[in-house]
Every structure is written in C-alpha cells, then in structure tokens.
C-alpha cells in the first residue's frame, strides 16, 4: 500500500505566517480609519421620529450634564424631502445661560452633526434648545413617551416626545488616537477592581493567546 505523501515541508508554517501577516495588516488598517467618535448621549434612543417641529420654532427639553470631551452633537432628522433648514443648538445651565452652542446652515436629512463652541462648564448643562430656521417643518428622532410630563416643549407648549442627541468628540480620530480614552472607559461601569490596567492586560493576554496558538499549531500540525 502506498503511503500518502507528507505535506510540503514548512507548508503549515507558511500558511500561519501569511495568515498572521494578513490579520495584522487588516487590524492596522481597521484601526487607522478616522471618524468622529462618541463621547456619550442624552440616553434617549432614536426609535421613531418623535418630535415634529414647525419651521421657525424652538424645541427645548431637559438634558443631563454633557460629557467633558464633547465637541459636537449629532441628531437624526427628517425634512419631508426638502433641504435641511438652518439649525441652531444651545445647551443651557439652570440660570438659562448658554454653556455650549453651535449650528449648521443647511444640508440633507439624516444624521446631522452640529459642531459646538463652549462658553461654560459642560457639567452644568440642564437644558437643550434646538431652533429651526425657515418655514418648513422638521421631524427629529427620539422616543415618543416623555420621561416627565413637560420634558419637551415646542415654542413653550408641551410636546409629546423627546429627541435623541449623540455627543461627539471634537475631531475625527483613529482608534490608535482613541486608545487612551478606551483605556479609561474600560475601567468604568464594571467591578471596582477593573481600572486603567484592564485594557493593556487584556491586550497582552490576547497576544499571548495568539502567540501560544500559533506556536501550538506549528508544532501539532506538522
């Protein structure tokens, strides 16, 4: 009986080496893409177009403190097929003073990013107002049921829903640039023993798993 021939010498090692290089290249490419990253949200999901505001109106609602690294806000809007009207967003403190504000002059419906300029402490924010320019109505995504009876008002009159705001960091960043932030966030919302050490240790463990598995495969699958 003829014995099956052995695999070409070092073929497994070659496949593993090419594969690891491919994964590494993809990972580097993936992490090098820049985009505006989230700093938080107002905790309201954009489930439906919950707020419909007429052109020229101002929609206000209660909101919690803004994350300290916020540089822009993002809302989901629908314009009923018309161009986006000018929008101005203001974050106010309890005295009604503007803490951060920004606006856009136009654009298209969908997610709209509004860059913000700070003029106070973001932790003091208690209210947000969105002023809609021109005469066409605007639908804003959020949640239909208000969390409190008078959460949202349009031109001073109570409205049935609340709109959703995502807070963004100021500039587009790659994942490499965001690593210190990820490192910080990794220790939050978990058991107290987690901390800034968690992400680096996990990265080392993942590296150890990969190194161990590749070495093991190269030995076992000869």
């Amino acid at each position, binding site marked *: 009986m003829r014995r099956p021939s052995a695999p070409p010498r070092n*073929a497994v090692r070659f496949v593993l080496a090419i594969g690891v290089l491919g994964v590494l290249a993809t990972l580097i490419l*993936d992490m090098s893409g820049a985009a505006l990253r*989230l700093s938080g949200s107002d905790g309201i*999901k954009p489930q439906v177009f919950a707020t419909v505001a007429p052109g020229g109106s101002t929609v206000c609602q209660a909101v919690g403190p803004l994350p300290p690294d916020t540089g822009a806000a993002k809302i989901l809007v629908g314009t009923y097929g018309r161009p986006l009207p000018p929008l101005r967003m203001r974050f106010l403190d309890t005295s009604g003073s503007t803490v951060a504000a920004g606006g856009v002059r136009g654009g298209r419906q969908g997610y709209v990013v509004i860059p913000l300029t700070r003029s106070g402490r973001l*932790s003091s924010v208690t209210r947000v107002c969105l002023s809609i320019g021109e005469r066409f109505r605007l639908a804003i995504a959020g949640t239909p049921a208000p969390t409190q009876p008078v959460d949202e008002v349009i031109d001073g009159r109570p409205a049935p829903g609340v709109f959703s705001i995502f807070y963004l960091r100021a500039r587009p960043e790659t994942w490499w640039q965001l690593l210190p932030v990820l490192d910080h*966030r990794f220790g939050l919302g978990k058991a107290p023993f987690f901390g800034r050490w968690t992400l680096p240790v996990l990265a080392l463990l993942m590296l150890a798993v*990969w190194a161990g598995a590749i070495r093991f*495969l190269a030995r076992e699958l000869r």
Partner: protein
Amino acid sequence: MRRLRTAIAGLPAAARACFLLALVNAVVWGAIVPPFQVPDETSHFAYAQYLAETGKPPPQGPGAAYSPQESYALQDLLFSQTIGDPNMRGVLTTAQNRVLQRDLSRGLSPLSEGGASPATNQPPLYYALAAVPYWISPSHQILTRLAIMRLLSALLAAGTVLAVFLFLRELLPGSPWAWTVGALMVAFQPMVDFIAAGVQGDNLLYLASAVTFLALARAYRRGLTRARAAGIGAACAVGLLTKLTFLALTPGIALAVLILGRRELATGRRRAVGLVALAAVVALVPFGVYGLLNLTAWHRGSFLAGGTVGATASTLPGGGVVTLHETLDYIWEQYLPRLPFMHRRFFAGTPLINIWLNGLVGRFGWLDYSFPGWVYTLAKVLLIPFLALALSGLLRARGAIRRLLPLLLSFGVMTLGLLVAIGYAGVRYQLSTGYPFAQARYLFPLLALYGLLGALVARGAGRRWAPVLGAGLVLLAMAHGLFAETLTISRYYG
C-alpha cells in the same frame, strides 16, 4: 483530588493546550463584554443570586425578579438605554461611574422576590454552581460578584473545548491534527465566546451536550462498561438539570444507548440490559428528584416548574391555536426552502443564511450589533467550498463512517430532535408575540458536531494537505474571534 490530577495528567498535551487557550480566550471575552450585555444575563444572574441567597430556586411568583442591588446596577449602567441600538452606550464618564459605584455601596438588598423571568422555569444546576463564585467573591459588590461568576462560564467553555477535542480523538483516532483543529475552531468561535463571557446557563448546557457526545463515542469505540454507562447517564443528568432544551437530545441519546446495549448482548443479555438500565437510572433519577422538589419543597407549580409550557402550549393569546400543519410548515421552512404546497410563509429571505449562517458569523449583544455586511457575504461565498470540502472529507472517511454508522445515526436523531424542538417552540413564540425566535446559539448543544465538521472540511483537502488547510481554518477562526472582539470594544467603549 488525586484522581482528578491523574485524569488531567493522562490527557494529551495538545488537549491541555486547547483547554488553556480556550480558557484564557474566554476570560478575555468576559472582561471585554460589559456587565449584563450577554443575552439574558440579567435573568440568569438574578436566578443565581436568589439561589445563592436563599438556597432554593425562585418560586416564580408575581414579585420582582431582580434584587434591589441588580435593579440599581441596571439603572446606573444605563442598561435599558444601551441594549437594542448599537449607537447607544453605557457608562462612559467618570461622573456616571461615580453614581454607579456610590449606589452600589449603599448596602442595597441582594434578595429579590424570586419573581418569574425567562430563566426561572429552568432547572437549577448551573445556578447552584454559579452560587459558589458568588459566595467566594472577595467583595459583596454585585459587579465584583458578576465578574467572578463569569470565570465559571469561561471554565465551562474551556471544558466544552476539551470535550470536543476528546470526542474527535474517539471518532478520528488516526488523525491527531484533526482533534486540535476541531477543538480550536470551537474555542475561537466568537458567538460561543460571547455566551461564555456572561453569567449564562447555556454554557453548562453546551458542556453537558459535548460530554454526552464524547461519552457515547467513547463507549461505542471501546465498549460499554459500568463506568461508561454511568458516565453517559451522568452527562445526561447534568444536561437535564441545566436546561430543558436537553430533552430534545434524549431520543437520539436513548437510541445510542440501546445500540450500545445491543452490542453488549454477546457478553450476556442480563449484563447488557443492566448497563442500559444503569445509564437510564443515573440520568433520570436526579431529574425525577428535581421534579418532586418542584412540587413539594420548592412550590414551583408543576413537575417541570412550567419549563416546557412556553415552548409547547398551542393556544395563542388571541384565542387561536397553533395547528400541527403550521408547526410542520414552520419547522421545515426554518431550515429549508418553502415547498409549493406549504400554506404560510413564516420567514423572509432564506433562514438557512439569515438566521443560521449569519448568526454563526455573529449577532452580538442583545442581538443589537453585527459585522459590516461584506463579512456575511464573504461567509456565504466561503460556505459552498467548505461544504464541498466537508463532503469530500466524508467520502474519504467512508470506511470509518461505515464502522460508525449506527452511532452517527443516533447523532443524526439528536440533531433532528434539537432542530424540531427549536422549530416547535419557535412557531408558538412567533405566532404569540410576532417576534422571530430562532438564534444560531440554540444550535450550540451540537458544538461537538461543529468541531467534527471543521475537521471534515480540512480532511476534504486530502491527507497531504489536510493539516495545512486545518491550520488555515483555525487561523480564520482566530481572526474571526479577534475582529469580533474589536467590534465589541468599539460597540461598548468607542
């Protein structure tokens, strides 16, 4: 302890390496996924906490299912805001974290009222095991306890990988490379790891199922002895006391045990019958005791604590009933293309791809985030050559298959039992609620066969190239797992 040490020392070094790699990988996953973000982890933790605090399973009354501790934790973790939308995040700022940690240090009660939840009608074995890390946790803070309890899930996942390795060793004794390939494909399967990241009873179900496959294969290859019959029974008992889904595997297991018993007839009819009876007694007596405790000491309403009611009740909320015809149509359509004579179209698109393949590639969180679309397209493209290679692997192994045919037949019945059970429960759920039911993870009691499929795909390349393709497959699984981890990090922390 000495026997355990001897057993571990008796394992092949490759098996120990697979176990260790799977364990560390699952521990990493457990630290990446934020608390309660594994599907149904809220309910599984609540069950374990109630059991750890009271020593008995929840009575499933109308009261609260979550303890004040867990309720506050969920509120401060922004749990309900986070799930369901991949753009929403949990705790991202130091201020939010301060509120969370302050509330959790207020000495809130860890005791719930044991109210009904999606997990409470299941047997208590996993939760009893989870009570051990709950008790030995160095802190009584709920998130510390949860983190320690997650290590148990990682251990169970690593145990499953070990069982798959040993199962493949029994089935493919001449191909040691295949044991490693199959086991590591399970170890790095990201949906397996995602479930292993959380406090989730399914992890013990997967282990019990994999060990059952192993015990049956071992007894088939080496002959049924008292120890092996008891082992099969014990694996089944663990499965039955973990989740009632295991009942779906029992017809196939019973067939396998009868086949094993029949092979022993040559050594004496009495001995053969005794061995079959031993396996049945070891499997069923603990389950019977569980049922009696439900009726007596635990007052959980019925023998199975209502554990099969949701999956089997045919009456719909509006007053209609689920007919046999609908049930059969649904079960068929859930896996195969609809036939012209079938009345209803239950699924849009092709469930084989949409639910099962895409689900295996990855639907993470509370089914709220996925890979970019091209990843699923690539998986679809790869499916055809992989299936062709698996078929080729089967043909190449036809000599071994002929020898194993009765065992493989019983594995087929186990698989069919699970597929039918998912469909049977699914049609009732979908017609009652309007929501789809099936998730790819429901197939994970068949992880041993997933490992076997991986080994067969590699074998399809022929003996010469099989280890090379096997290395490529494991690397693909590792890359799949790695990018699932980075996706998860961007979902919750980015």
